């Protein structure tokens, strides 16, 4: 479903992705963790071509992401992306945020798109907030709207870049709950997060990155309880003491 083949990427001299080999199966939930600056965001941003790569190939649903012949719009409609900072459109209501792409990219009729949009809002527990503007919503609610916005395109893959890192602690749970229920529905998910509880509960695999390299992968229980490398052990002890 998602495959990295010998991917290398540099920001000027900084080797931000170093010879990445990775396969994510359909329906798999992958958690990516690692120290700040290790290239986690860059890794998942390459999957929908928010970032170019200099070497190698990424294949998503049979499409070569960085091949200029690939239909990028089609690729992106199959991938939902949730950002750390939500990035809702502040001049639109929650529902307008959600229906913008279905109406204009997928060319779904407005009434139908609104119906889907309300379903997705209901899905993230915000049915009554359809007409609220982002500024009227709490961080946790905004992030749930952002998830609903991604879901409204009926993507096969959802990518999350530290979706709870910008939230006050009391709001983290409501967002994680939504993500847990998504995971049980068979959507392929790649989640950059340090939420160990989430990883242990739903992740099929945890991937640990450092300095642009994949250092270790494993089942969440194995990884967190018996890390194979010193760097991973170090990192885990840090997030535990945090």
């Amino acid at each position, binding site marked *: 479903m998602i495959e990295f083949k010998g991917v290398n990427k540099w920001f000027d001299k900084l080797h931000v992705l170093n010879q990445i080999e990775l396969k994510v199966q359909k329906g798999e939930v992958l958690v990516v963790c690692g120290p700040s600056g290790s290239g986690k965001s860059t890794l998942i941003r390459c999957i929908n071509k*928010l970032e170019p790569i200099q070497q190698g190939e990424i294949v998503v649903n049979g499409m070569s992401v960085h091949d200029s012949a690939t239909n990028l719009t089609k690729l992106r409609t199959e991938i939902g992306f949730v950002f750390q900072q939500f*990035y*809702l459109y502040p001049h639109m209501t929650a529902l307008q945020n959600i229906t913008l792409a279905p109406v204009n990219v997928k060319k779904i009729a407005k009434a139908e798109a609104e119906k889907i949009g309300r379903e997705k809002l209901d899905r993230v527990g915000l049915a009554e907030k359809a007409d609220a503007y982002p500024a009227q919503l709490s961080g946790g609610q905004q992030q749930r709207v952002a998830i609903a916005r991604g879901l409204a395109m009926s993507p096969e893959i959802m990518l999350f870049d530290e979706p709870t890192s910008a939230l006050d602690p009391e709001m983290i749970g409501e967002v994680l709950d939504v993500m847990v229920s998504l995971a049980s529905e068979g959507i392929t998910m790649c989640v950059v997060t340090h939420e160990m509880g989430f990883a242990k509960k739903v992740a099929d695999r945890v991937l640990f990155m450092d300095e642009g390299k994949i250092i270790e992968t494993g089942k969440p229980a194995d990884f967190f309880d018996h890390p194979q490398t010193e760097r991973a052990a170090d990192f885990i002890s840090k997030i535990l003491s945090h």
Partner: protein
Amino acid sequence: MLANFNFMVIFEYLPLFLSGLKSTFLISLVTLVLALITGIIACSMRISGIKTLQYPAIAYIEIMRSTPLLIQIYFLYFGLPSLGIVVPEIQTGIIALMLNSGAYIAEILRAGIKSVDQGQIEAGLSSGLNYVQRMRFIILPQALGVTVPPLLGQAIVMVKDTALLSLISVAELTRSGQTMTSERFMPAEAFLTVAFFYMCIYFCLKYLADWSQRKLIFREVY
């Protein structure tokens, strides 16, 4: 001092002032439209990300902003004929003002567009919106609110800049004052009247600017 002013002369010259006001108004209006078009083109080129478009736009904007308008006017006024291009003063003046204001407008537009969070643009990209759709649905609605007030500010500056065209004998408002001064030698009355008319235009535009500020600025807090 005011008692020494000869207001009767002002009334005598009123038709001249009004025709000056009219041409100042028309020159400003035409220039503003042309400058907006110039600004939109220069801004589009500047943000295009294509070097062969970007560099000429940057050069144009920086030259206009780094040199005095009067020099630009003189340059065209004396320079164009020496290139064999002979156009009436009024058109020379409009071209100079258009080029000058266009550069400032390009930067105002660019600032408005840049004020939209890059993350929102990435959110649009991620959901498959194309360039035109991102502009139309995400960037422009937010950029417009922050752009209109400074655009009107630039319009105010530009109206006052039209006074410089009197120096290349364009018959506008300031020129009317000069005419009255040279015929009657009453510069105080003449330029007081001229100033009054500029103030009238200024307050109309300021009113528009304030109104647009209230109406158009997108508010974070509802």
